[in-house]
């Protein structure tokens, strides 16, 4: 009976969360900086090749700021990253930012479609399992989950690619596509691949959370006032199970992001994962650096988004 949870407290909560993200981002940047310095291989040699003369190497180091004292390098690095100045690719001299800007949408697209499929199948499966506990439907869902966990996604991806693209020709074999429908056509199989394990995970999580919620007193209250089962399950049950589910879906999104690396390779589609892999094989430090930072910012962003969703889902957070 104190604060009724107006917009003011909510804004403050969000600001606090944002402030929380600042040290995380700095930490990430610092780790990337350190990692780039202790990575094996000389970036100058990597960029210019074994045949480069010492003078050429020296010139390159000077140009890239690799000769400056470490603390200055660090400050320059952090500043560069924060202003999205990622430099240029050592391989083809393209702006790293432009490379990321081209590839990022494909990864986001893949993640979003995979999540929609995963959540869209996982939640109903979980509801089915929870409402038919220990019956045939529950066992079937359990079997599906085990399968989802057991099959590695790159293997499943290859399987789907061979079956539906190569043999049946229903889906394109590689690339990202142009225009909305073509892109959706391209993203479908990779997204299904990632979605399987997601649906398995979210299905299990939904089942567990729902069963826990079904034991709560307010579910009994809902029945006692005359609510029928569908209303009890969805309005009262699932609505409360969303709290633990939000965390799970957030974590699952992060997992998709890293899972997309392998999937982008298998399906040979553009994306941050693929960009990173080729940059690593070519020791393109500038691109690796930019890619890792963007990846990490993504993680921070998803965490922030999760906090936002919590606010929507749990009224108790709004007032604290």
């Amino acid at each position, binding site marked *: 009976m*104190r604060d009724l949870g107006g917009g003011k407290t909510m804004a403050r909560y969000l600001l606090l969360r944002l402030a929380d993200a600042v040290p995380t981002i700095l930490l990430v940047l610092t780790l990337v900086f350190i990692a780039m310095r202790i990575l094996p291989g000389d970036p100058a040699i990597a960029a210019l090749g074994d045949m480069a003369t010492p003078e050429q190497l020296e010139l390159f180091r000077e140009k890239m700021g690799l000769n400056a004292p470490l603390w200055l390098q660090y400050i320059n690095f952090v500043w560069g990253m924060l202003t999205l100045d990622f430099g240029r690719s050592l391989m083809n001299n393209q702006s790293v930012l432009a490379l990321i800007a081209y590839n990022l949408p494909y990864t986001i697209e893949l993640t979003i479609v995979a999540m929609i499929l995963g959540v869209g199948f996982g939640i109903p499966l979980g509801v089915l399992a929870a409402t038919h506990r220990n019956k045939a439907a529950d066992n079937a869902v359990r079997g599906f989950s085990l399968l989802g966990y057991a099959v590695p996604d790159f293997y499943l991806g290859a399987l789907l690619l061979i079956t539906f693209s190569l043999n049946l020709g229903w889906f394109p074999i590689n690339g990202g596509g142009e225009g909305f429908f073509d892109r959706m056509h391209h993203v479908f199989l990779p997204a299904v691949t990632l979605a399987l394990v997601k649906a398995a995970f979210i299905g299990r999580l939904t089942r567990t959370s729902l069963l826990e919620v079904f034991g709560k007193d307010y579910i009994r209250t809902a029945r*006692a*006032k*005359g609510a029928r089962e569908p209303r009890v399950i969805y309005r009262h049950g699932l609505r409360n199970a969303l709290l633990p589910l939000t965390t799970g879906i957030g974590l699952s999104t992060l997992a998709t992001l890293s899972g997309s690396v392998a999937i982008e390779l298998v399906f040979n589609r553009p994306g941050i994962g693929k960009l990173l892999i080729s940059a690593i094989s070519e020791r393109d430090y500038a691109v690796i650096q930019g890619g890792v930072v963007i990846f990490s910012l993504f993680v921070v962003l998803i965490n922030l988004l999760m906090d936002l969703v919590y606010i929507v889902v*749990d009224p*108790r957070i709004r007032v604290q």
Partner: protein
Amino acid sequence: MTVPLLKVDNLAVEFGPKANPIRVVDGVSFEIPPAGAVGIVGESGSGKSITSLSILRLISEPPGRIVQGRIEFNGVNLLDLPRSEMPDIRGRDIAMIFQEPMSSLNPVMTIGDQIGEAIKLHEDMPGEKRRERVIEMLRLVGIPDPAGRLDSYPHQFSGGMRQRVMIAMALVCNPKLLIADEPTTALDVTIQAQVLDLMHKLRRTLNTAVLLISHDLGVIADVCERVVVMYAGRVVEEADIRSIFRNPQHPYTRGLLQSIPKLDDDRDRLYQIPGSVPLAGSVKKGCPFYQRCSLRIDKCAQEMPPMFSFGPDQRAACWVTAGQADAKAKEVAL
């Protein structure tokens, strides 16, 4: 005698595997007249909650099941109705509130929505009118500034206020019977008195019959006219409040009365019935109270005492007191 609003007859509930069931409620019978108030008293585990949940068929099945008896509401045996018809009765004809006000309300729904839902489930009422009805109900149960509290969530209320909200939600469709399962047990004493007061007041204004469950005879005496005393899943005594306090006939009821704290009490510790309640379903033979009874005779260990009638308003299941009251007591056909 008037036609009862609710008549529970020879109810039995079992838990566990069918092959080896545990009978936690056995042969329970009692009646509630229209607008009457009946209490069920008994120690923890005596089957009060299971009995009351059975009336609305809210026992979760599995693991529990009603295996025998009738539950007649307005002459209709609820146990004969198809399961799909129960939601129409719940909340509209018979409403129920529970012991734990902290957890009995949905934490992610506003108070207004939760009470409004109870109306929506049973009545065709336009949104604006529904809102007014909710406000009126909240005012009736003594929530200050009811219009301003519609959009509040349960966690923004204290325990006592939440129980008031529960009562408002239960009574919003004008049920003919309100089942209250230990509605005040989780509250501290002053709040407890306020909530009981409220129930008392509402009973008179709304003419709702009440089944009040408590392990505290004092609480029941405050609200009810009749009491059902339960022990180990059975009714051991049933009488009007006056007879229970003046002339209890079952040794267990006498023990319960001795353990009620009194204002002029100068004893350091309250009387407690020695021993503990037998595990549900563990008594297979003889009187369930045998282990703890100071009046017991050999017969008690062998034969389960039936209900004896002690005058028009009192029945109790005890061989010894029935024998003492001799002429008056006669076996009631079960």
